[in-house]
């Protein structure tokens, strides 16, 4: 696969070294090209890319608030339609909090109404912009500042909300999961999403150096470990048809993934085994 050289997210932004979110946005915009309008929810991405009077966005970009990015995009898409500019792509970037928690209603409305837009959730599995608080997308066992481990707690005690399947229940034409560590898989999915008429949802896992607790040069490695251990599964649902898009030749032990991150460091072997059993069950069901 040939990766276009042109960049639409300029360097010089304020992201942490090793930020996974900006890698995801760069790859997505390469596929979407210049005739694209981007909408951001409030969050890391918005703050690091637009410190007024600077901006990293080389395409038109708008941010209004935290929970309404899909609603703002609905208005943008409708306005473009009214102007006959139906060839312009509308893409939304929302974090996991802005997508699975506070923005879920607006997202559900936009998907159900059938707007022709792509929603990309960049999932770093907690509220990283405000300093690592638990979101609905935080995985079981993770220690965050609002689900800390302690004498009476092993950290987050609820499983991660299954956003892609919530989107699938809307009956939209295209849903996919992706990882920044599998750029070709992700970019193909972005391309497909842009070619489909109607709403598309891509749930992009992206490791976060500060929130997950690993050193910045390991971002890509962590994304790979998530997929190679079966902790994050790459698939797509096209017109209702489910397909796993990447199968590790040999699944690695989940504890390799857990042990590489500070957020899981407190877990006992028993708890890690429990997570392994859960991952096994999902992988057996999906034949991964």
């Amino acid at each position, binding site marked *: 696969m040939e990766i276009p050289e042109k960049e639409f997210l300029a360097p010089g932004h304020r992201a942490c070294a090793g930020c996974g979110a900006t890698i995801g946005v760069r790859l997505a915009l390469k596929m979407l090209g*210049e005739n694209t309008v981007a909408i951001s929810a409030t969050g890391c991405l*918005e703050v690091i890319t637009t410190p*007024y009077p600077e901006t990293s966005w080389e395409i038109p970009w*708008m941010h209004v*608030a935290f929970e309404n990015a899909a*609603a703002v995009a609905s208005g*943008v898409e409708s306005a473009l339609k009214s*102007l006959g500019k139906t060839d312009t792509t509308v893409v939304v970037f929302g974090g996991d909090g802005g997508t699975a928690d506070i923005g879920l209603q*607006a997202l559900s409305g936009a998907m*159900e109404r059938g707007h022709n837009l792509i929603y990309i959730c960049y999932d770093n599995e907690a509220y990283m912009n405000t300093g690592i608080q638990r979101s609905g997308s935080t995985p079981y066992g993770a220690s965050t500042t609002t689900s800390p481990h302690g004498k009476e707690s092993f950290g987050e005690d609820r499983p991660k909300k299954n956003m892609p399947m919530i989107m699938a229940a809307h009956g939209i034409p295209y849903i996919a999961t992706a990882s920044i560590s599998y750029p070709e898989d992700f970019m193909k999915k972005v391309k497909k999403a842009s070619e489909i008429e109607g709403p598309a949802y891509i749930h992009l896992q992206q490791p976060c150096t500060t929130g997950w607790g690993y050193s910045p040069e390991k971002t890509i490695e962590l994304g790979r470990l998530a997929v190679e251990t079966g902790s994050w599964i790459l698939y797509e649902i096209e017109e209702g048809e489910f397909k796993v898009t990447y199968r590790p030749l040999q699944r690695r032990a989940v504890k390799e993934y857990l042990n590489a991150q500070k957020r899981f460091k407190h877990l006992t072997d028993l708890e890690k085994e429990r997570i392994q059993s859960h991952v096994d069950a999902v992988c057996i069901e999906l034949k991964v």
Partner: protein
Amino acid sequence: MVLKVMSANQAIAEAVKLANPNVIPVYPITPQTTISEHLAKFVADGDMSAEYIRVESEHSAISAALGASGTGVRVFTATSSQGLALMHEIIFAAAGLRAPIVMADANRALSAPLSIWNDQQDSISERDSGWMQIYAENGQEALDSILIAYRVSEDHSVLLPSMVCIDGFILTHTVDPVDVPGKGDVDKFLPPYKPDHAYLDPKRPMSIGTFTDPNYYMEARHDMELALEGAKDVITKANSEFAEIFGRKYDFIEKYRSDDADTIIVAMGSICSTIKDVVDEHRDNGEKVGLVRVRVFRPFPTEEIYDAIKGASNIGVLDKNISFSVGGVLHNEINAKMDVKANGFIVGLGGRDIKPTHINEIIEKTKNTTKTTQWIGLNKEEV
């Protein structure tokens, strides 16, 4: 001129059809709903070509309106009460992003207790947002105000959103004879919206809604203050051109038999029709009573109101809202901004009737100046 009998909600829908916005995101709420329904029917019948978005909440209605406005097209939405309160966060964002959105608000009380009936607490509570606010007295004024609002909001020196407020049920669900202007005249008064600065266009990419540090935020807010104050000249010009084309002259305030009055009542919205009748009765008895109706509440017409009331010895200000432990908002703003000693009266909350006897009671009470806010029309026995 052919007058048609219609509700203020229909009059507003007719105005919106004439203004021809590209995008209409709306969510139903009593007593605004029939505005959304009329517009849906216009679109369904092919009488309007707007993109009508059936959003899942008022928060998304104003968010989609802001997204569409940011794309550089004319938009309309409408709401009421709880819906406006739900919009609150984005109401401020819309003004801050300088989006010339026009919205109708069917004035209704805020919960709790839950009430679907009229007062003006909902829109008054948004007074600090940077939106312009017009309070109409009847269906004709509601229609005309929508057209004037677009004209002023879209002026490149203003670029602030406008709220046209009509009293719930009293105006939204009662009918009046209304002159619906011809499309040709409206097009003369209100040319198509042409954005000239920040809008989403891949040919000239811009970032809208960026993150600002303390070096920039305050200037952005100061610019809004200048634009809202500057809007006064734009409103004056729009009013006079409107009068030339349509023969109806509006101003920031309406003075009704107030020029030589000893006693002046100041109020907003539909209650002013009742007050005019009461004023006439007093004038018939030789008493110098008058009314000053505040039509444009934001930008606040300090000079116009002061000039109209400064000669009176007794001034009573009616508020269909309450800023708890301070009193009515219009009353407090008048006393704060002007060298007058007006008495404040809280009336008509949650749809409580305001009868001519109440207006007479207020006129009587203005004879003794007091700083204490007086509630008129309370039931004698608390249940």
